[in-house]
């Protein structure tokens, strides 16, 4: 059973398009995250949600809009895709917001902008 699953695994699209990435966790966790990993493998937090409420919103263009319909799901919608958006996007979850919790990551969505 996959704990944190993301779809799609690969996404190839043209500049200017709008796309969504979906994430689901079956761990019963309260907190979910989106991270971006660039070509140099640097993993940077974008957003975190706790019980469907936005907690962390890093300096991310407002073309990126997360949505959490329930605490098991956190989707990411990206408008007007740009070349610089090409990266691997990881979803993660943790038991709650307290700092000592391990994060469980999905296997990533590889986004390529043509």
């Amino acid at each position, binding site marked *: 059973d996959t704990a*944190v699953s993301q779809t799609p695994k690969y996404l190839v699209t043209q500049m200017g398009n709008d796309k969504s990435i979906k994430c689901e966790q079956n761990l019963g966790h309260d907190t979910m995250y989106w*991270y971006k990993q660039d070509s*140099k*493998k*640097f*993993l*940077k*937090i974008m957003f*975190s949600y706790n019980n469907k409420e936005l*907690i*962390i919103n890093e300096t991310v263009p407002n073309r990126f809009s997360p949505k959490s319909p329930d605490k098991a799901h956190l989707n990411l919608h990206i408008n007007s895709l740009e070349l610089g958006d090409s990266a691997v996007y*990881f979803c*993660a979850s943790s038991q709650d*917001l*307290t*700092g*000592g919790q*391990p*994060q*469980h*990551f*999905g*296997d*990533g969505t590889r986004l390529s902008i043509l």
Partner: protein
Amino acid sequence: SQKIEQNSEALNIQEGKTATLTCNYTNYSPAYLQWYRQDPGRGPVFLLLIRENEKEKRKERLKVTFDTTLKQSLFHITASQPADSATYLCALCTTSGTYKYIFGTGTRLKVLA
């Protein structure tokens, strides 16, 4: 400025030896520090967590130390095996307002048979 650095981008060691990976940070006061393993094409996998008031943590062949004076964590893999080859990431938990993890750039470890 705030920075997290992991020693070398790549580290090659002989099977059976101890691998030591370094995580140095500046201008942070982390309450927690975590280590993750990442294999190609996969998401990071949690390995160990250490709190600011702990000096050392162990789990099987893994050992983590945390020196808040030196602002450094060391991650050791004893009796290393080729299957330990992966990228290892350290992550600091900051508490400015809310808990947030900042990741280092990782060290790619290769254990040679």
